[in-house]
């Protein structure tokens, strides 16, 4: 199982802070495709992805119990 976290505009679009996905051994890119199909998300193209609080690339493979966060362009400061 993978935990997926949403923030900012994506959180508002999805309508929830997080969800659990019953998958593993898929890539970040495959997870994105799955979520886009499942939730009709418009804004997953420009987001970065963090796994367990570290930035990763799209080809990172996800393990059971990983926490994936979608990070839209940041605007702190």
């Amino acid at each position, binding site marked *: 199982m993978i935990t997926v976290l949403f923030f*900012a505009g994506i959180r508002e679009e999805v309508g929830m802070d997080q969800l659990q996905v019953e998958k593993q051994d898929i890539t970040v890119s495959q997870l994105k495709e799955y979520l886009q199909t499942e939730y009709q998300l418009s804004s997953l193209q420009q987001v970065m992805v963090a796994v367990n*609080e570290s930035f990763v690339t799209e080809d990172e493979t996800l393990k059971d119990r990983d926490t994936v*966060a979608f990070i839209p362009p940041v605007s702190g400061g």
Partner: protein
Amino acid sequence: MELFEITHSPISVEALINKVSRREAGAITTFIGTVREFTKGKKTLSLEYQAYEPMAVKMLSQIGDEIQQKWPDALTAITHRVGKLDITEVAVVIAVSSPHRKTAYEANEYAIERIKQIVPIWKKEFWEDGTKWIGDQLETVEYPEGKPSKGESM
């Protein structure tokens, strides 16, 4: 004493200065990011900051490590506030101490640039006619490498 923090309360600039003050420092610079009323002519009523808190603390701490690599003499503390903020309220404070002033300025400016690149914090603007989550403010819409760079020193 934590040098890198996300807080839900008002930030004390003096507290951050105290965190980096030390006998070998001759210069302390602070950067205070405040909520500005007008951005490109549009009037902001208030702001809301949201953070992926544990990762934001981790990234602030990474910025501290990068500064340590580039300017070994510098000591940095950063606190970013989240939640709803009014005009003139303080969103972020960066304090850097160093024996010499040049380093204190350079490292401080480096810190704010990096915050705007890699720290998972988002700003929602509230205007009279609506709201919007603001994207990347570095005038780059996409990350050419697919993720933010880790900085020269990493």
